[in-house]
């Protein structure tokens, strides 16, 4: 019997995630060429000029595309996601405190989580804040002639700091999505939109129960009809 699967992300949530993720990776890989001198030397001036053009072109979809997809495609779930990210309870802090052991594959008991666990909420908040910072400082750099020299001068260290910190967060994010045996089932939620029921139960217990309760209500309503 094929494993039961439950829907986690609709098409627009997934498109929004990947339009952000892909443009972010392009921006990071092209931007870091200006930070690591060895990498810059490898590319040479011609390569760097090309990377700059890619960086500048990616700025448009990075800034606008994800927001447009979420607002037009799936405003209700995007709003729910934001609300959940901003709601923190005791279990969330306990989860964060216990999570490093889980990250390294050590034995640990994690408190039950909703649709988004506390780590995902933290990652979401960092991503939102970081993206606003990157877009704001990036556009200042692109439109530098319209800003005062002091603003442009400080935009650069902020842009670099945001890029390098978010680059570090991205490495952890990719590891959890693809490499970590406990959590890598979650990548299917962002690809096909569905995860195994077992994964949902074990990693997002509160969400799974709400999902089942919702299904039951629907079924009972169908019976009555």
């Amino acid at each position, binding site marked *: 019997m094929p494993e039961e699967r439950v829907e986690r992300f609709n098409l627009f949530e997934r498109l929004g995630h990947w339009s952000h993720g892909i443009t972010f990776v392009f921006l990071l890989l092209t931007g870091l060429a200006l930070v690591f001198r060895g990498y810059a030397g490898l590319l040479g001036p011609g390569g760097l000029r090309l990377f700059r053009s890619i960086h500048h072109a990616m700025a448009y979809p990075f800034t606008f595309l994800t927001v447009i997809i979420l607002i037009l495609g799936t405003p209700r779930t995007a709003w729910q996601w934001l609300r959940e990210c901003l709601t923190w309870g005791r279990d969330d802090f306990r989860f964060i405190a216990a999570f490093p052991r889980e990250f390294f594959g050590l034995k640990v008991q994690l408190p039950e989580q909703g649709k988004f666990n506390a780590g995902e909420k933290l990652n979401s908040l960092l991503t939102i804040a970081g993206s606003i910072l990157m877009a704001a400082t990036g556009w200042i750099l692109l439109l530098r002639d319209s800003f005062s020299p002091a603003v442009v001068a400080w935009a650069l*260290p902020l842009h670099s700091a945001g890029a390098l910190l978010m680059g570090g967060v991205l490495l952890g994010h990719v590891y959890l999505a693809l490499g970590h045996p406990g959590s890598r089932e979650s990548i299917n939620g962002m690809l096909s939109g569905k995860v195994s029921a077992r994964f949902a139960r074990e990693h997002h217990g509160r969400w799974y129960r709400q999902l089942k309760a919702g299904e039951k209500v629907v079924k009972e309503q169908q019976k009555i009809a």
Partner: protein
Amino acid sequence: MAKYGMLIDLTRCIGCHGCTVACQARWDLLPQVQFTKVHRYEVGTFPRVKGGVVTTQCMHCDEPPCARVCPTGATQKRADDIVVVDEQKCIGCRYCQQACPYDARSFNPQGNIVQKCYFCYDFVEKGQQPACVETCMAAARIFGDLDDKGSELSRAIASRKAVQIKGTSIYYVPPRNLDASFLPADFREPGAVRIWQDIVHPGGKTVMGLAAGAVIAGLVINNIKGGGKNA
């Protein structure tokens, strides 16, 4: 090796812009790109007004922040102390323009490069003078070797009581009407450059390195414990 520098005697400068134009002609610059500029100042209130002229250009700093921030190594300080830009290597990111404390760099939108005064290094190598020095009718500019105590430059600096802009290769004889506060300030690395290069870059690289290390450690531990199979 020579250590090149320049003296600008502002008691002689009449603000004719000859230096600006001769330099533009020699380097074939766009009209909006000026390696050396002439600024006029007025002090006091009418009828007691005094005026003065100050010229500015690349100061060929001892520790040029423009060279520090250049991601391609296009801007470099040579052994003879001249700060140059290899225009073939420049990608037009304009980091140097922000980093310069003297606003001495210009963006050339046609070539998508940043340019500045090169002390006419290739002419100097052939024993010639920089264009601005050659053209100055009032002989307000003297170029030469600061290390050679017998050079015309070194002798003029001593005899005319010139002020060195500290940390740079430029000396001024201040105009009679204006005090030294109208001259470019002594060199100080801009705070944004220091934080960016000394804290953000090394700190950020450390954060990325630690994250990569943590991921590798996690992969190794998970593989040893579970053979990498899903938990």
